[in-house]
């Protein structure tokens, strides 16, 4: 049994995750998720239920894999030209840690930019990571992205905040 992760390791994990997205190393990124991991963008501020309340996105590993495979495809018309993305993170804060249950929660305010062709869109979000360890390695149980304008009329978000 390896030692529990330090706060520094939790912070580095969140920063590394954003870097993988910026570099579009999406297979590596998907590997950061636990087998039962989810990625969630609520539609309402303070939303508690992803199952019976509509969300902007709520995907398990299978759906994330479909998304990533689609981005590689030649017939993916909305990615011709391709999108790029850029994350600017505040230093993640460790909000909770329970070494006994291997449960860790971080909170990271960020700006996210997605661009495609001549269009560039800025989003602001608070991102909450629920992390665990699997065989001594940090993994994502839940990445929750609370967009500041989650209930606004939005254009396409094609990559990952």
């Amino acid at each position: 049994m390896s030692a529990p992760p330090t706060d520094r390791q939790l912070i580095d994990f969140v920063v590394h995750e954003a870097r993988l997205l910026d570099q579009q190393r999406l297979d590596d990124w998907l590997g950061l998720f636990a087998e039962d991991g989810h990625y969630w963008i609520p539609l309402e501020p303070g939303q508690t239920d992803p199952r019976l309340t509509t969300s902007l996105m709520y995907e398990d590993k299978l759906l994330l894999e479909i998304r990533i495979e689609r981005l590689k495809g030649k017939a993916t018309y909305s990615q011709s030209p391709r999108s790029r993305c850029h994350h600017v993170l505040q230093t993640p804060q460790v909000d909770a840690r329970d070494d006994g249950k291997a449960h860790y929660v971080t909170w990271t305010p960020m700006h996210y930019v997605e661009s495609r062709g001549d269009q560039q869109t800025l989003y602001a979000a608070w991102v909450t990571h629920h992390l665990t360890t699997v065989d001594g390695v940090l993994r994502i149980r839940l990445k929750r992205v609370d967009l500041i304008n989650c209930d606004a009329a939005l254009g396409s978000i094609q990559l990952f905040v």
Partner: protein
Amino acid sequence: MIGRYRGNRQALTALVRETEVHRDVYLDREVFELEMEQLFANTWVYVGHDSQVPRVGDYYATTIGNQPVVMVRDTPDSIKVLHNRCPHKGTRLTGEACGNTGRFFRCPYHAWTFRLDGSLAGVPLKSGYDGTGFADGVAARGMTPVRHVRNYRGFVFGKLNDAGPGFDEFFGESLSSIDNMVDRSPQGRLEVAGGALRYRHACNWKMLVDNLTDTCHPMIAHQSSAGTTVEVWKSAPPGAKKPMAVEIYAPFASPYEFFQGMGIRVWDNGHGHTGVAHSIHSDYSAVPGYFEQMVAAYGEARAKAILGEARHNTVYFPNVTVKGPIQLLRLFKPIAADETLVESWAFRLVGAPDTLLERTVMYNRLVNAPTSVVGHDDLEIYERAQAGLAGSGNEWVNIQRLYSADEAGRRNAVTDGTSEWQMRNQFRAWTKFMTMGL
């Protein structure tokens, strides 16, 4: 500048041919203005669902075409739709999209107040209007009601003009799709489930409406999402239960024969639906306990008839569509000739198992959200069409597929599922309501 189309019946009529429409119906600003003045005023336009305003004083602010309106429950048993402006200086009376206004609407500018039926309740320092003839003017009448409002099984529609057909004549047999969606509740009742997805589209609103019965695009435009889903699922362990999400995505990749066989039904006044025989919603897994609830509520024969319908998209012309089997409604709100706001609303079947709502909510985010891999490719196509139509080499959009010269006179007909008849039907209605009274 003198426009080409205003007041010109001949010019408007010339935009729609039997099998082609002129690009100006998608591009021209004046045509868009006339749509707001004519088409969206002479037809019954969806406003909202009565479950959004359950208590007296509850309101929901929205638009009919480009007109700001507010739907309000004014008594326990009635709903009004009012033009959402103060008769004094024009201030919109609601700030939030929905809420409860108490017994009055109160203008934030000068505190004029209005009863829930729109009538003027009070004006501060009213003596300033004594002897001015105020009582005889339009301001004294308060918030102007939308004159023609109908609540059909919870779905509230409004018609701005006195011209145009009555509600029952306008919709005719097409109301059977709303009936089927509502009947799927063992209690015969729907409720809006949470907020709507709101997705901005830089294209004309009609591109979305045309797409609803376009069954030759899913296997092409959605190959990237549905086809990839099928491929990824092939590597699932043998015997694994097919997830709800795969059941939702995969049928988009069905072959032409599937869509030919599903059929399209065409109704008067631009209404119609895909999925007469079957549809992409036909093969969802049964939800334990639901059929038994339906049999208890309706009897077995009727329950089977209700659940046997698989209507895919029902177009309620001009700008709303429902999916009965999955309890979704999409509203295409026109903002400008090249800008549309798409709202996607989920409904709970009152009394039915939660798993049905789970599927509705999942479908909504997988297919209708601004993050949707299905929606991304559709929007890409619409935006490319909006851009491509600027080219003057050919000014016409083709809607000729499976055209027959005698179709215009046929009523409530069923046709091949890949026909563009329903698109032609929409444009015949477009011409009718655009030129009404000219």
